């Protein structure tokens, strides 16, 4: 479990055993059934979670429609990030789609880890930078690419989500109508996706 996290972190910064332990001793393992809420709208997000097993989505309600803004699987982080970082109430619900195991760190513990180790602080900076860039990239793609291009790009990069995540959720995540999603999916069944559009 910790090995998975160590792998993930090594993508950002090289930590010594001691530095990793600063983080390790502050983690808690949390397990959830499917369809459980980790945080709901209006609550303050206390944890940053690393998915060890399972699938988690983040969404809010626009009228009666669920708008999904994030889906995380094994080896990825999820949290109502803005709320976690600001300590203000969450705009989003975070809910498991499958039974899940996550490694979590609370805001207070993370702050302590930053104070204890400059390398962890650097990790924090690099990870937050990455979140900003990811968000920017997603936003730019939504502007730049049309519906079909976004669908193909997403499926190309995340083929296994197509079998794990209910179709209506994927459609919502890609901000397209379920009918459009299904039409595009039937389209590629006949002709397999070859690389980028």
């Amino acid at each position, binding site marked *: 479990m910790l090995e998975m996290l160590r792998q993930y972190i090594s993508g950002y910064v090289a930590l010594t055993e001691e530095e990793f332990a600063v983080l390790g001793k502050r983690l808690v393992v949390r397990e959830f059934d499917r369809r459980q809420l980790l945080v709901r709208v209006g609550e303050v997000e206390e944890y940053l979670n690393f998915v060890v097993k399972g699938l988690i989505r983040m969404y809010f309600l626009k009228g009666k429609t669920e708008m999904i803004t994030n889906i995380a699987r094994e080896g990825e982080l999820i949290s109502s990030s803005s709320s976690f970082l600001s300590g203000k109430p969450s705009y989003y619900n975070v809910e498991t789609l499958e039974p899940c195991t996550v490694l979590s760190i609370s805001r207070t513990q993370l702050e302590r880890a*930053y104070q204890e180790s400059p390398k962890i602080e650097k990790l924090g900076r690099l990870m937050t930078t990455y979140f900003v*860039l990811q*968000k*920017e*990239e997603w936003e*730019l793609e939504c502007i*730049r690419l049309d519906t079909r291009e976004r669908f193909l790009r997403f499926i190309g990069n995340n083929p296994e989500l197509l079998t794990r995540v209910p179709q209506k959720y994927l459609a919502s995540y890609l901000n397209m109508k379920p009918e459009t999603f299904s039409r595009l999916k039937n389209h590629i069944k006949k002709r397999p996706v070859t690389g980028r559009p």
Partner: protein
Amino acid sequence: MAYSASTYQAALEKLHQYLHGYAPLTRNEFRQMERFLEIREFDKKVKVIHEGEVERYLNVVAWGLARKYLPVRNKEITIQLASEGHMIHSELSFHYRVPSRAVVETIEPTVFFSISYDSLEQLYEQIPGMERLGRLMITDLFIKSDNRYFNQLRKSTRERFLEYVRNHPDMVQRVPQKYLASFLNIKPETFSRLKHLTRGKAVKG
């Protein structure tokens, strides 16, 4: 364009204050940092970075006004507006060292305090307090960008308009209407109509 030395001093002083708002930064540390800053001056309507170039700088507006836009199918989609004290650069290009898809262009004559990618790396190496400052500034950027993203998805055109006018009355004066409309993802006609609507009665909090 020539500005007096005291004007630059005052702007630097403001920058120090602004950074200090995120994390304590001693005068000495700020002095050290100052050496890495470049002052870049641009006339209005000048492209600071073109599409296809790799972004060399992270800029903070000392004074003036700039926007970032994405050229898409003969249209320019404005994705950021930055006035005094705000950061503006082509982030993805700057961090990943890839050609920029976005364009940064001045709206008014603008002066930037800029730091190059390499200088920024050196700064993180040399000044211990920088990691914290960097982390907190980026955290703030993330929260703001998430807020904007959420508002775009969740709020109606009218709500977005009213909220922006209420929170940024100065920008409504300074930014050409077509850029604001694009930034708020509102059709120019709708933007005009909403503006006329609010002119008669004051916007309530």
